[in-house]
């Protein structure tokens, strides 16, 4: 029977999973498979497992519960082993590595930060600070058919936005990193110029959150800083 794998923990983890629903239509709670020194949290893999919203949420709910009670190595969504034996074998094969990672993650959680900036806010800043941008802006307002100027303005703005976003991203990470044990860069896209994860000691979570708040204050309404967490340490395994 194929087995869906959620996470690896040490053998002592309480695994309070009875009230949770496993992945799949009519599944009960997840269970565990024991290796020699570690355990994996698993459930029967439904034959037609699809990456639906409900399934991703089920995976995440199991991980969040496990995180409440101790260190956890979260699996990436969607991994299926052929059988319980294979799971136990995989646990034993890399037991030392997993144990070391669990040790490193012990007492720590992930926080994920995304930052975006209001477009008008950055445009205003650029027009205020760049005489050339102002000149081109006036020229294209006066003469909407000035295609050369229009392109030049757009290109200048593009470059300035990238430059400013990069600088902001560095500043923000530098401001928060002192409260974190590790930092892992994510991939910013869409409306965000920064996506980054921090591994934070639970004991320092309040301090970390305060730094984020301070950064929000400092940046003002033109920026949107969104903090997610505490999360299972997906980015640090």
């Amino acid at each position: 029977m194929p087995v869906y794998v959620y996470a690896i923990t040490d053998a002592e983890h309480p695994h309070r999973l009875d009230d949770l629903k496993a992945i799949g239509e009519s599944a009960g709670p997840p269970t565990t498979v024991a290796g020699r020194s570690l355990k994996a949290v698993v459930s029967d893999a439904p034959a037609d497992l699809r990456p639906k919203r409900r399934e991703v949420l089920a995976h995440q709910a199991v991980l969040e519960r496990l995180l409440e009670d101790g260190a956890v190595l979260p699996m990436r969504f969607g991994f299926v082993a052929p059988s319980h034996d294979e799971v136990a074998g995989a646990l034993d094969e890399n037991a030392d590595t997993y144990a070391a990672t669990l040790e490193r993650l012990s007492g720590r959680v992930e926080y994920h930060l995304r930052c975006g900036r209001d477009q008008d806010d950055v445009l205003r800043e650029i027009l205020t600070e760049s005489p050339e941008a102002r000149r081109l802006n006036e020229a294209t307002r006066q003469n909407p058919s000035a295609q050369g100027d229009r392109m030049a303005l757009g290109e200048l703005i593009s470059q300035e936005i990238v430059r400013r976003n990069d600088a902001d991203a560095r500043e923000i990470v530098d401001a928060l990193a002192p409260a974190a044990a590790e930092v892992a860069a994510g991939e910013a896209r869409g409306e965000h110029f920064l996506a980054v994860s921090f591994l934070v000691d639970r004991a320092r979570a309040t301090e970390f959150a305060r730094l984020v708040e301070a950064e929000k204050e400092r940046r003002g309404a033109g920026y949107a800083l969104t903090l997610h967490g505490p999360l299972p340490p997906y980015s640090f395994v």
Partner: protein
Amino acid sequence: MTVMQQQQARPSSGGGSSSLYDVLELILDKGLVIDAFVRVSLVGIEILKIDVRVVVASVDTYLRFAEACNRLDLESGRKAPTQLTDIVGDSVESGAKGKSKGALTGAVEAFSESLQRGRDGDEEEPAERKSRSSSSSTARRSPRRKEGE
């Protein structure tokens, strides 16, 4: 009419409410991988994750940036300190957010909306935003001098 682009600003929440969309990437792309195991096909989700990174260096983007600059009212922006948003309330806020969605985010909207659908409670009313954001940009067509700072 430039105003037509400004619609459906989705809430850029400053709070810590974990939207699945933001965390999705961690769950799907990070986390432990065990080579001996097989991964289920993520076809449905890969579509959601098609790289929506903004291509900053494209003619299309340049033109949209230029247009956004042209319609930007520098003066009102300067006069309004950041706190004003909170005090005046959502008419100012929705105007600003509506505009900000121009060149950078258009492509992302559809994806994030489909994921956010069904999320309880925190969706905004797009129609309301649309009508508000169009009201603010009519009276300032005339080019104005910027007082250099």
